[in-house]
Each structure stands twice: as structure tokens, then as C-alpha cells.
């Protein structure tokens, strides 16, 4: 499709020469480049000015002309001629039209309010003159580099090349105090311990800095810092917001998973796989300490979205939810805004609505579910052992009964009751009276892989054989207290009722309409029925209002209370069949085993419901022996093993459903679906081999593989750019979540590609990438820059100096706690409840407020309640969790000052700091100030600062009430001093 596919590397070579002027450039403030590059010079002009009418979206295309493809741009125009004739500006209609003075002809037309500058016109002109070389969008070309992977100076080489090209002069290295504070905050989110500062200053060895970097990379606080960066991408929250702010079960386990993953430096490709398809991986990654499977926790990111309370239009609700999942998934991992193609083809990027609905199907085929937090390889093995023991029990019985002989007499009578299909007022959704689960999904372990049909029933005490089980799906198949869910295939509701014949204790049957989970009154309450009957009972769901909707049935031991899933120890549920019908419960169903399959083996023999009845009759009549001594011990071992599988701790995650291909919704409206359904697949533009997902399930594993395909040009670029962004405060591509045509171009394309390639080669190690970057000279430069740089590179794009950065919300709060020595470094666990102020009102408000100081824990452990976000966090720009925010805003507002001036937490911490200071029993005033400076700024105060401190201190002392006694007064004065220290800009900025 793209004729001139030129490596980015080549074009970068030309970028360096941007400053060289050529003949026609005098009139422009910035001279025209020698070689005009399509991606870097031309396309930005086309995207901003032309693509709305001549871009990828056919619905808004004018004059049948498209300028987003080479073919389109050089094609014959309807009215004759060609928009672009490469090498021939005089013949190119485009050139004529941009210079045209006739308002009826000039492009862009005046009514668009768009106007090309003279320089832009000249660029287009020159580019066509030079042959109109077309290239694929830069980020869709696979990154390649000629740099030496082992060259420790590669970053500096590439940065310096551009600095030299621009004639910018580098500033010197930062001093050691600044450096350690910078590295400590950026790697761990905390200021350095003053002892570490002293050690670093004292260590004059050449490896001192590398040692420092490694120490912080290996600090547990590193994971806490970088996990929080990641949480901004996945709209991390612990509640679902909306009307009542329901909890997201186990959200914090996902947060802990991230912290562990970053600390263990789990390779990024693994992390990606676990997020997209952690439930589908052949081998799950184990927690090093507990052996528990980690991988599934990644999928919790799907369920971090908002949850609507009783939406009347549940289908629209699903569409909104899936849209959010697509939005977050594609921005986070691919830096693409696929969600823009919901209503029509993307206006700018070559992403079609079909691409969007291909991914929509993937999400629609994914089911939300509680997932036990303690799954492990051991448990998997235990389940297999139990299954073996159980089938061994069957074999023992078969052997004893000498069945081959006996069975001859029992011809299969399954079809004995004829069913008049025409008269049938019902449809069977699942029948478990046979041997198998009738195509339903048995998620988790409880229901095993088959029904109970033919399983020996033993007297628990004597071990005497009481009979064989009839067929049913049972959550007790493996044992009690084990998680599992039996879920039907998707059905389209066509009849008034869904019925399930079931019995059990403390358990539930739920009808999941369009994947909607927050089942409750008013509207959906009837779709979740509690099962508490010892005898078989017909559970009836009136689904008449939702005819035509997609649904599935979920049979689950335990159940939901306030949308939190619980599994009581005595909970179990068993089901015989599920039907959908009109009118009355179908009366002939009970005896009709017509749909029950006779197939399946029992101890190597065919078993059928009929045979089980015959055997049980024979057993009762004493025709078959009931004493089989070995049985009891096998049963005991099986039950003993089952105890190891008990679980009572869950998180919200996903299980794979049944593959659904989605139609395209015209203008994003599900009420206007296309005839054709779009097969689940990856984005067509990246034309990666084998992008069709063929799995029977969602296709998420294939999605993960496509993202990690060697030819995927985005995955590694997007991630290294995020890392760069967190270290420098700005990405090489500034729009970190948008690498599409509307995103910014990379400031250092060659560097980005070098890092992207290196990231892959180094095994996707995030820590190595960070180490590579922070050990560069570029990173170690001082922030002090003169007026020259201020005018030549005002936004510090070229990094002649290190950018001055304000600390993030968490780093400010954690920094305060650290310098007052009140930080509790305890890691992990349930979040500390949100501290509620009077200003935080509304539905779903927790009854009790959390502590003011968050128990001294790091901010990452404070609860994130969507409807009650921590004011200090949001005021200092922690994003509102609804979409991907790879880059935080940095606002500057008086409410930030008011927090530092007047917030009770800050005042409380100042007092604590003063107490700590006085406890040190430091001798002189100077020592005290120096202690504070080292704590807060990682440096000693200058003599000038000491002098100012002394004046200030004296003044404070004069102001404090005269009647205060000495110690109290000293305390009061130091408190005010410490409080002032928190308010210095140096405290919240990395200087």
C-alpha cells in the first residue's frame, strides 16, 4: 500500500539538518528543511487542515478526494487533473488550490476557519517538488536502530546530536545533593534518607552513582512508585462510582500485584499478557513467596470501570462499558485512540469502525466474575488428584459388580419417551441429568468437568454403598467451600421465562443480561435468586421485559450481598436442567430425558440415567453387593484433599465466555447494527500476520500475542516512552497515550527507536530501561539554565538541562510523612479508609471516616473511592479515574497553596516534625536547622539561609504567647518553622 517505505532512521538523519537553509527560506522564521519529510513536515499540515474532508472517514469526504493515502492523493480527480503529481508542482491541483485567491477555490475553504501559513504552503510545495515521497505514519513503521546496544553513551549521543544541531549548549551536571533527591523521588517517590545523602556525598568512587541507582531500584518503595504510574493508565479505583459507589472486590489485590510485579521486574511482555489474558495463559506466574498464581490478577484492570446502578437500558450500559475497556486497553498498550472509531471510521487515524467492533467482540465475549485470590499450581494438582480418586471409586464399584456381564441386560432405553417437538413450548438451555455439562462452562473448580451421574454414594460413617448418583451439575462434585460457577452459553431471550431446576444452600442463580453484573432492585432484582432448598425446586425468572437481549445463566455456590461475592462454608448448589419457556412450567420435562445424552463412560462402560436407575433398583433389591471395603478410604482421602481447596478470598476478574462477533453499530448506536458481523481480530492497519482471532472464546490471548508480535511497531515504543516520560516529565512523544496521527511527533525519533529496540532485546526489563536512562548524562544534568536556553529552547524539548518538576500528589504527601519520620512503610493489604471531610458528601458516603493521616501509610495504600476522591490527591492533579491518563496535568492553583497552608494534615505533620526535632536533643540552633534541611531538602542550609532562619525564628518566638512555658513555647515555634518549610517551593519541586 505504501510505495515509499523509508526507514525512520534515514529521515532522522535529515532532521539534524533542519537548521540548514535553502534558497526560498528567507521569509520564514524557521527555514525550510533541505529535504521535506512526509511524516515530520507534511502530514501534520494535512491532518490539521485537510483530513476532516479528505481523510480516512468516507462519510465526511468531499469531492471523492482522500489525502490520507498515496493512491488517493495521486488519483485522477473527478473534475480532471490530479491533486498531487509527484515532482510537478505546476500540475498539482493541491498546490494551485492552496495558493488560489478566489475564496470559492482556495483550500482549505474559508468557512472552515482554517488557513495555511506561508511556510506551510511552501513546505507542501517543496515536498511535491521533491517527489512527494509518501511514508507510512511514523509509529506504524517498525522501530529499527543502527546504534550499538552495548554503547553506554547511546542516549547522550542521540540527545547531543540534536543539541548540537540546534546550537544549544548543555548545562553542567547537577550537584550530588540534587542528584540523590532526584533519583530517590523519581525511582521511589520518597525523599532520600539523610544518611543515604551523607553516604553518597562521601562515596567518591566512580561507581557511587550506579550503586545509588541500584539501591533505589531494589528498594520496595520503587514498586510502590511505579505501580502508581501504571494505575493512572488503568483508571484504578476501589469503587464503581455512579449512584451508590459500590465496591470493586479485591481491587487492592491488583494494586499489590502491580507493586510486586514492578519490584520483581516482571518483564513487560509478561505483564501485558497477564493484563490482557492472565486467565488464559498456559502457565501462570507464581508468587515467589506464597506460590499463588499471579497472572490472573492482571485481568482486574478490565473491571476497573464505572458501574451503573440499575440502568434501564442495559444494552447501552454494556456498550458504554465495552467502549471504556477498548479505550483503556488500546491507549494503555498501543498508544492508540481506537475508541474514536465507535461511531464512524476514525477521522484521522487509519482505524476503521470495523476495527473497533472486531475488538468489541473480544470484550463482549469476556465474562466478569469473582476469582479466588489463592489459586495455585498446587491446587490444580489437588483437583486432578481428587478427580482421579473419584473416578477410581467408580472403577472399584464397577469391578465389584462385574458390570460387563450385568450391563448386557440393560439395553439403552433413553429414547423411551417420545417427545412431540412441535408441541414443545420450551427450549432446553442445559440438561445435566446426563454425563456431561451440556456445553456449559465450568469456571473455577467446584463443578468439575462432568455431572455426578453414576458417582457412588456412600454412607459417610460406615462407608456402605447406598447407591449411584443421578445426573446433576453439583458444586459439591469436588468438595465444599470451593469456588466455581456453572455458566451457560449465550442465549437470546425469546420466551417469557427462564427456569432452573435446582436445590442447595446459601447459593444463587443469576441471569446475566448483556454481561450486566450489578443486579439489584429496582428493575433487575429478580435476576438474582437465592437458592436455599433441600429438595428440588423450580426457580423461575421472568425475562419477558428483555426479549431479544443476550443473556447467560450463572449457577454459583454462595452469592452476592451489596455486590460483594461471598462463599459461606456450607454453601452448595445443584441443578438438573435449565429451560426457557412461555406460559407454565413445562410439565412433561421431568420425565423426559429426551435431550439427555447417553454417551459418556463410567468405569469404561456406557452409563446413562436409565442404567443408574436400574443399578439402584438392583442394589436395593440386594442383587448387587453394597460392601466394597476400599471405597471409604478413597472417599476419605478425596474429602481430605478437598479441604485444601477451600477459599474465601476473591477479587473481581474475568473468565472467558463464548466467542461473539459483533456487528458494527451505525453511528455507535446499538439499535442500528450492520447485517454483517465483524470477526474478532486486531487492527487492520498494522496488518500483522494472522490477525484473525480463531479461538472459541474471546480471543484475548491472541490479542496479547498480536501486541507482542515482533512486527508490532507500537508496544515497546509506547512503553519506553512512558518510562522516559516518568523520568523527564515529558515523553519523547509528548502525547504518551496517543501515537496516532493526532499525537505529537517524537522530539527524538532515533532515540525512541533505539530505546524501543533495546527494551525488547533486554528482555522487556523495565528496571534495566530505567537504569539505562538514569545513568545517562542527559538525566544527570543540572536544572539551572541561563537566559540563553530560555529563549532558544523555552520548553526544554532538547534537554540541555534537566527539567524543573513539581512532585506528584503522592510524592508530596509521602514526602511530608517521610521527613517527619511518620511514614509507616508497611506494604500491601486492604486500603486505609478515605478520610472524609464535610465537603465530601453524597450517596454511598461511608459511615465512618478514615484517619486524617491515613495511618501514616504511603498514598498508594489510601482508598480510591470514585465518588469520594481524596481532595489533596485531586488538587495536586491525580487524574479522575475514568480513562487512561499516561500524563498528568500539572496545574498551579491557589487550592494547592491552601492545602499546604491550612490543611489539618499538614499542620499535624509540622507539629510531629517539631516533636521529633526536639527529641533529638540537638545542641545548637544551627544543628536543628541543618537537621530540618537534610530531612526536607537533602542538603545543608547555606549560611545565608541559616541567617534568615534565625531571624524568622526570633520573630516567631516574639510572637508566640508570652505565658507559654519554655518547652511548650519552643515546640510551638519549631512547629511554625517546620510548617513553613513544607510551604517552600523547594519542598514540592525537584530542583
Amino acid at each position, binding site marked *: 500500500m505504501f510505495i515509499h517505505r523509508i526507514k525512520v532512521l534515514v529521515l532522522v538523519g535529515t532532521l539534524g539538518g533542519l537548521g540548514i537553509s535553502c534558497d526560498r527560506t528567507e521569509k520564514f522564521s524557521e527555514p525550510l528543511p533541505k529535504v521535506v519529510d512526509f511524516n515530520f513536515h507534511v502530514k501534520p499540515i494535512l491532518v490539521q487542515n485537510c483530513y476532516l474532508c479528505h481523510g480516512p472517514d468516507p462519510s465526511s469526504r468531499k469531492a471523492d478526494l482522500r489525502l490520507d493515502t498515496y493512491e488517493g492523493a495521486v488519483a485522477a480527480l473527478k473534475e480532471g487533473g490530479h491533486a498531487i503529481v509527484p515532482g510537478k508542482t505546476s500540475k498539482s491541483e493541491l498546490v494551485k488550490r492552496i495558493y488560489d485567491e478566489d475564496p470559492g477555490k482556495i483550500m482549505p475553504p474559508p468557512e472552515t476557519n482554517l488557513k495555511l501559513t506561508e511556510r506551510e504552503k511552501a513546505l507542501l510545495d517543496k515536498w511535491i517538488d521533491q517527489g512527494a515521497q509518501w511514508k507510512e505514519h511514523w509509529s506504524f513503521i517498525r522501530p529499527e536502530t543502527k546504534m550499538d546496544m552495548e554503547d553506554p553513551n547511546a542516549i547522550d549521543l542521540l540527545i547531543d546530536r540534536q543539541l548540537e544541531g540546534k546550537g544549544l549548549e548543555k548545562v553542567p551536571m547537577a550537584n550530588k545533593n540534587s542528584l540523590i533527591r532526584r533519583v530517590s523521588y523519581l525511582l521511589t517517590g520518597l525523599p532520600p534518607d539523610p544518611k543515604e545523602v551523607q553516604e553518597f556525598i562521601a562515596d567518591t568512587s566512580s561507581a557511587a552513582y550506579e550503586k545509588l541507582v541500584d539501591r533505589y531500584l531494589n528498594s520496595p518503595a520503587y514498586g510502590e512508585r511505579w505501580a502508581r504510574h501504571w494505575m493512572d493508565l488503568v483508571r484504578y479505583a476501589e469503587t464503581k462510582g455512579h449512584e451508590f459507589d459500590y465496591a470493586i472486590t479485591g481491587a487492592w489485590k491488583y494494586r499489590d500485584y502491580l507493586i510486586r510485579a514492578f519490584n520483581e521486574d516482571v518483564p513487560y511482555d509478561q505483564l501485558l499478557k497477564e493484563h490482557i489474558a492472565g486467565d488464559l495463559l498456559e502457565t501462570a506466574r507464581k508468587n515467589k513467596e506464597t506460590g499463588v498464581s499471579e497472572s490472573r490478577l492482571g485481568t482486574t484492570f478490565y473491571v476497573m470501570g464505572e458501574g451503573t446502578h440499575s440502568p434501564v437500558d442495559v444494552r447501552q450500559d454494556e456498550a458504554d462499558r465495552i467502549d471504556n475497556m477498548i479505550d483503556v486497553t488500546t491507549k494503555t498498550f498501543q498508544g492508540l485512540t481506537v475508541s474514536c472509531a465507535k461511531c464512524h471510521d476514525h477521522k484521522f487515524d487509519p482505524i476503521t469502525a470495523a476495527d473497533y467492533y472486531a475488538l468489541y467482540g473480544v470484550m463482549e465475549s469476556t465474562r466478569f466474575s469473582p476469582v479466588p485470590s489463592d489459586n495455585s499450581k498446587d491446587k490444580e494438582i489437588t483437583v486432578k488428584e481428587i478427580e482421579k480418586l473419584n473416578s477410581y471409586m467408580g472403577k472399584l464399584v464397577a469391578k465389584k459388580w462385574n458390570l460387563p456381564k450385568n450391563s448386557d441386560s440393560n439395553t439403552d432405553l433413553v429414547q423411551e419417551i417420545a417427545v412431540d417437538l412441535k408441541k414443545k413450548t420450551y427450549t432446553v438451555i442445559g440438561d445435566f441429568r446426563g454425563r456431561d455439562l451440556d456445553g456449559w462452562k465450568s469456571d473455577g473448580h467446584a463443578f468439575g468437568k462432568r455431572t455426578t451421574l453414576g458417582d457412588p454414594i456412600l454412607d459417610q460413617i460406615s462407608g456402605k454403598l447406598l447407591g449411584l448418583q443421578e445426573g446433576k451439575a453439583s458444586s459439591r462434585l469436588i468438595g465444599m467451600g470451593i469456588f466455581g460457577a456453572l455458566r451457560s452459553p449465550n442465549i437470546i431471550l425469546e420466551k417469557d421465562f427462564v427456569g432452573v431446576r435446582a436445590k442447595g444452600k446459601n447459593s444463587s442463580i443469576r441471569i446475566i443480561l448483556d454481561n450486566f453484573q450489578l443486579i439489584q432492585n*429496582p428493575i433487575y432484582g429478580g435476576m438474582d435468586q437465592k437458592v436455599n432448598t433441600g429438595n428440588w425446586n423450580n426457580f423461575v425468572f421472568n425475562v419477558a421485559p428483555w426479549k431479544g437481549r443476550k443473556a447467560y445463566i450463572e449457577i454459583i455456590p454462595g452469592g452476592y450481598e451489596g455486590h460483594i461475592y461471598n462463599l459461606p462454608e456450607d454453601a452448595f448448589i445443584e441443578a438438573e436442567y435449565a429451560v426457557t419457556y412461555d406460559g407454565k412450567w413445562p410439565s412433561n420435562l421431568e420425565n423426559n430425558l429426551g435431550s439427555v445424552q447417553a454417551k459418556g463412560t463410567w468405569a469404561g462402560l456406557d452409563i446413562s440415567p436409565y442404567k443408574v436407575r436400574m443399578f439402584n433398583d438392583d442394589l436395593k433389591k440386594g442383587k448387587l453387593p453394597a460392601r466394597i471395603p476400599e471405597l471409604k478410604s478413597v472417599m476419605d482421602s478425596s474429602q481430605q484433599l478437598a479441604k485444601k481447596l477451600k477459599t474465601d478470598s476473591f477479587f473481581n476478574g474475568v473468565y472467558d465466555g463464548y466467542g461473539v462477533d459483533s456487528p458494527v453499530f451505525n453511528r455507535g448506536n446499538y439499535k442500528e447494527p450492520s447485517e454483517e458481523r465483524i470477526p474478532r481480530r486486531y487492527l487492520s492497519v498494522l496488518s500483522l500476520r494472522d490477525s484473525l482471532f480463531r479461538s472459541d472464546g474471546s480471543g484475548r490471548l491472541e490479542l496479547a500475542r498480536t501486541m507482542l508480535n515482533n512486527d508490532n511497531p507500537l508496544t515497546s515504543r509506547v512503553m519506553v516512552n512512558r518510562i522516559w516520560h516518568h523520568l523527564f516529565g515529558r515523553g519523547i512523544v509528548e502525547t504518551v497515550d496517543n501515537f496516532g496521527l493526532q499525537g505529537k511527533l517524537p522530539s527524538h525519533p532515533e532515540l525512541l527507536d533505539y530505546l524501543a529496540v533495546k527494551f525488547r532485546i533486554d528482555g522487556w526489563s523495565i528496571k534495566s530501561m530505567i537504569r539505562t536512562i538514569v545513568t545517562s548524562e542527559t538525566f544527570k544534568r543540572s536544572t539551572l539554565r541561563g537566559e540563553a536556553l530560555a529563549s532558544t529552547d523555552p520548553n526544554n524539548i532538547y534537554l540541555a538541562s534537566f527539567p524543573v518538576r513539581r512532585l506528584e500528589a503522592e510524592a508530596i504527601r509521602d514526602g511530608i510523612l517521610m521527613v517527619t519520620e511518620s511514614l509507616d512503610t508497611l506494604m500491601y493489604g486492604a486500603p486505609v479508609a478515605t478520610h472524609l471531610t464535610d465537603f465530601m458528601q453524597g450517596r454511598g458516603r461511608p459511615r465512618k471516616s478514615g484517619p486524617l493521616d491515613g495511618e501514616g501509610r504511603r498514598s498508594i495504600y489510601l482508598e480510591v473511592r470514585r465518588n469520594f476522591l481524596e481532595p489533596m490527591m485531586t488538587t495536586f492533579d491525580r487524574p479522575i479515574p475514568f480513562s487512561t491518563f499516561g500524563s498528568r496535568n500539572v*496545574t498551579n492553583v491557589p*487550592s494547592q497553596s491552601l492545602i499546604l497552608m491550612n490543611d489539618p494534615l499538614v499542620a499535624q505533620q509540622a507539629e510531629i516534625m517539631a516533636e521529633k526535632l526536639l527529641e533529638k536533643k540537638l545542641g545548637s540552633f544551627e544543628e536543628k536547622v541543618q537537621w530540618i534541611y537534610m530531612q526536607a531538602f537533602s542538603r545543608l542550609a547555606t549560611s545565608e539561609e541559616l541567617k534568615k532562619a534565625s531571624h524568622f525564628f526570633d520573630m516567631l518566638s516574639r510572637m508566640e504567647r508570652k505565658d507559654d512555658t519554655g518547652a511548650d513555647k519552643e515546640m510551638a515555634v519549631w512547629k511554625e518553622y517546620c510548617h513553613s518549610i513544607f510551604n517552600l517551593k523547594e519542598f514540592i519541586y525537584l530542583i
Partner: protein
Amino acid sequence: MGHHHHTKSRIISRREMLGLSAGGFGSLAFMGLFGTLPFGCKRASHLETASNLYLGPHYLPKAKNVIFLYMDGGVSQVDSFDPKPRLAKENGEDPRKKFKVDATQFDNVGKILKSPWDFRQYGECGMPVSDLFPHIATCVDDIALIRSMVSNFPEHTNANYFLHTGSGLQGRPSMGAWMNYGLGSENNNIPGYVVLDGGLIPPGGLDNFKNGFLPASYQASVFKAGPEPVANINPREDIKNLQEEKLQFIKQMDDSLIGKIGEADAVESAISNYELAYKMQSSIPELTEFKEETEATKKLYGLDSDDPHLRGYASQCILARRLIERGVRFVELTCPNVGADRWDQHSNLKVGHERNAHAVDQPIAGLLKDLKSRGLLEETLVVWTGEFGRTPFAQGSDGRDHNPSAFSMWMAGAGVKGGTIFGKTDEYGYRVIENEVTVHDLHATIMHLLGLDHKQLTFRFGGRDMRLTDVHGNLIKDVLA
């Protein structure tokens, strides 16, 4: 510079940025028609593109400020501003025999229910108003009533988000945030977007008032009645002048930091913010004490009432006037907690609506009259609306369920044609049959009155130029003066 400075390609120089970032200090050159200084806003340098800079109105505005009287829960249109005699005639009959009934959230459809209140005609225009609002009724000649509002959502929270942000989903910027993003605040000492918490935060919570993807500077500041009207507004220092001394020390130290590091706009703006914060500390308490309000004014709003909820709402209304007098761009009042769960009368319509109406009726009328007598109504747009209406048939026996298919709202003040009735519902007041007005249309119109073209006020987020009105919105021309 006029008002063309919002064009996309405008390059903002470093010093101009600094002017902005300092919340307006020394940036006179940047002021549009109303001193368009975003309240203490540092334009983050990494916003997606320069198109994320909007400074000032697109054309000559009619209104400077908006007071948004939010009738949380949904006022019943057929009991307030849209009389339907047919309900009385068919009272007690089965609605399903009369018209198609949509699914509702509670699905407890009762009989057709006549309004418990009588309607009378008021003013020169003769607009009918029910006995629920005898005071507002005296202002009808200033009011443009729209009887043909529809919402996309029958659930409170979606509908609240929709009304406030133009999207039924959580996390989008509120209209108050958009207005401030577009116009900035006129006053550097008070935030440009204020929510007066009258006791009830609507379902959906504070996210109704947030900045969404806009910078946090545009989120609402919540004011509450009481000794600390705004979070952290009161100094902790209990010794006179102590805070000033501390701030001076801080300034001195910060200045020497600037001397050391040289070029650092962000730090300089952070320093200026302390000056603003300090001024806010004194300007806000002054605002909330009504020292200079006359007894007559207080009485006009109903501050002398026996009903504590009425008194509470009256002081919110006075405060709203005081805020817009000081240039606050957008003020929203939430409902008082009268103990009847907002206007959301799924049962006991009579008692609930009466309690709510009693609390807000006189203060709102007082506000309109007070604004008018001070000449402020000419530059202030007052908007009165719920998130949807209620059903003409009963829920159970004596309540009404949610109805997004028709509701009434009104506007008064700047640029609004008083004494107008626009749009029409069917004979039951159940559905709109003429001149349907969407929430997007309402937003477009409010923005228009403020001098903003809703199609041009965009913010680049996630690869799209986002708008308050998404891809919708038409001006409601018939209600414009």
C-alpha cells in the same frame, strides 16, 4: 487583540504563558471582553495541542454569569409549569389504555394521577403556574419557560451526569468547568466555579462538578454553610499576623530560590498562587457574612422564615448573588435536605413536592427580584431545572416515577425572552410533541448567551476534540431576546 485570540494556531509566548500561569498577574494584554483570566490556571505545557488553549468568548456575550438552580430528583412538570386538565378528567384510569407506557426504573405503574395543585395565570404574559410556586409565579414576565425538555436517561445518576457534563458517563467535565475553561474567572480571589452545597449532593456525587479531562483548576469549589465555607480557607494560626509573617518568610526563601535556579516559570507561578490563596482567605469569609445586606433584602429572600430549610436556601441564594457580583462565572445551588429525598417523589408526591417547593420558592423569587433591582439580571443567566420530569400516572398510588420524555425548565435574565413559553407536551404531559429541546440544546444555548460557540469550545483529549455538546446541540432561538 480583540476576541480572535482563540484561533488554533496562535502561539503563546513564554511570558504570556507566565501571565496566565500566575492567574492573571500582569497579563492585562491577554484580557478579552471580561478580563478572561482563568482562575489561577497554569496551562499545562503538555496538554495535547495548542488547541487546548481557549481564552475568552467567541462573540459578544449577553450573560457574564450563570446561576444554576438545580432541582435535584426531578420536579413534576404536570404539577408545576405544564398544566394538564385531562389528568383531572381521567384521574384513576389505567394509563396503558390511553398511551404506550415506557419502561421505568421502578416499573410500578399506577393510575393516571391528577395534579393535587391548582394552576393560575400570572403576569402580563399570563403564564400558568401551579400553587406550588406562588412566589416564582410573580416573576413570570422575566421567565422563558421550556415545556419540551427531554433527557436521554431515566436514572438519576446518568441523568445528572448528562445534565451537568453532556455525557451520561462519569468523569467528564462539568458545564461550569467548561465555562471557566472558555472564559476564565473575573475574580482572582474567588474560584470561578462554585457549588453551594445546600445539603444534598446529587446522585453521582461530586463528579457532577468535576473538571474531567480539563485541568483540575476548572473543577468546582464546594461551599458549605458554616464556619469554614470552603475547604482549608481558615488559617490554622491562632496568633494575629503569624500567618502573614510565615508567608513573608516563605516568599523570601522562594524568591532566593528563583534567584538561584533562574528560569522556572512553574515555580514562579506557584509562588504567585500563595498571594492568591492569601487573598482568598480574607475574601471568602467576607462573602459569606451578610453584614452589609439590608433587612429588606434578607426579608425578600425569606431569611426571616420559620422554615429552616427556606432560611438555608435563602442564604444560598443571597450568597449566589454575592458571588456573581464578584465575578464568579458559574454558581450552582444544590437542594436543601427537607427530609423528602429531593424532588424524587416516588410516593407521597403532595407532601414531598410541597416541602421542597416551600423551601425554594420564595428565595428564588427573591433572587430574581433582587438581581433585577440591582441591574444584575441583565448580565446574569438564571437557570432552573431538574434532570428529568415525572410520569403523569402514579407510581403506586400517590407518587410519580421518572420521566425523561418530557419535563419543564426555565431560564431568566441576560439575553432571555421573558414571558415566553416554548415547546409542547401531549395532553398528559408525558411526551414532547412540539419543539423538543435536548440537554445538548440547553448547553449550546447557555454557552451562546455567555458568548461561546459550543462547536468551537473544544479540548483535545484521547485523540478527539471534545465538546460539552459532543456532536450535538442547537440553539433554542425562540427563547432568546
